[in-house]
């Protein structure tokens, strides 16, 4: 038996988060397989700020509860991100999985997060105290540890609108669908900057496990 809270607004969600031990639930695809006993979920899918994709001059703002399928259909989302999230899981998983969940569970295997690393994205966190912007590179503190304070929700991901047009991306998984990534590589080239690359290594014997890495030495070792 699960007791849950359904929030209709961001403020309501933040109140519930502070006053209960509810776990934020967007798509549920990572949470539900954990099968936590006596867990209470805070359902976020009705909160408009978390479901929106908007643009400003510099960034595309992708709400934390936007699903991968929705992002793939949206013309403002950069192609590199679309390419990566198209390879996640399966159609049903993409219909439920969200950007907030993909980074929020602290996994080192998150496909959208790799692109956020390569693109120098920012994460917008919100709490009763207001909003806070964090560079994605500083958001991961270690395996399954995030710079997420109690009472904070991930509000949206800020992806640069421009500069991601020249890219390369490859995912190596166990099979062609329903595959957790073993190794993946995203490289972005911008003419006025050095090439940036994000790489996630999941085989500990190859290098530093867990977090995506931009260290070129680790990149070289990963590909022999």
């Amino acid at each position, binding site marked *: 038996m699960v007791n849950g809270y359904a929030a209709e607004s961001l403020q309501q969600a933040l109140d519930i988060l502070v006053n209960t031990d509810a776990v934020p639930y967007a798509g549920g*695809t990572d949470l*539900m397989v954990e099968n936590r006993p006596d867990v209470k979920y805070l359902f976020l899918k009705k909160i408009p700020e978390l479901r929106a994709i908007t643009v400003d001059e510099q960034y595309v703002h992708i709400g934390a509860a936007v699903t991968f399928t929705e992002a793939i259909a949206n013309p403002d989302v950069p192609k590199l991100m679309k390419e990566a999230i198209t390879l996640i899981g399966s159609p049903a998983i993409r219909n439920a999985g969200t950007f907030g969940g993909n980074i929020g569970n602290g996994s080192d295997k998150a496909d959208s997060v790799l692109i956020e690393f390569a693109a120098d994205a920012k994460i917008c966190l919100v709490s009763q105290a207001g909003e806070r912007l964090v560079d994605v590179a500083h958001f991961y503190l270690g395996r399954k540890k995030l710079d997420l304070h109690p009472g904070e929700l991930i509000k949206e991901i800020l992806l640069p609108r421009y500069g991601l047009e020249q890219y390369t991306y490859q995912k190596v998984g166990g099979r062609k*669908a329903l595959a957790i990534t073993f190794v993946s590589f995203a490289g972005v080239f911008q003419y006025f900057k050095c090439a940036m690359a994000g790489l996630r290594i999941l085989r500990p014997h190859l290098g530093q496990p867990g977090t995506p890495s931009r260290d070129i030495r680790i990149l070289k070792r990963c590909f022999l």
Partner: protein
Amino acid sequence: MPDISFVLNGKETSYAGSATERLLDVLHNSCCVAIGAVVGSCVVTLEGYRETERYAVMDKAFADVSAVQCGFCTPGMILAAEALLSKNPHPDETEIREGLSGNLCRCTGYNAIIRAVQKAAEEGNGLW
């Protein structure tokens, strides 16, 4: 309370695809959807879908090409095919394979299932 016997536990990982349902015309693995998340939404399971004309076409196609061996994957395959055809009434083989890529089958090697979906798409002309 209707018997929702076909919303199976997809082995608790969301990977089997055998626990499938359609939520507001969107395919979901029901083993990964908490009830609280769908309050106020329209959920269609195979039991409801079985009453439709589209299902009759699908049923006949699966039977005609013998796309069922043990049958365990079949409910999920049918709902995934329905979700696919709703968005893309005339998919090519690659699109069918992608649409059904979240449904695992151990018995058939998938070829007959793909043929069944192709047949349903041809014969159900106008329904999707």
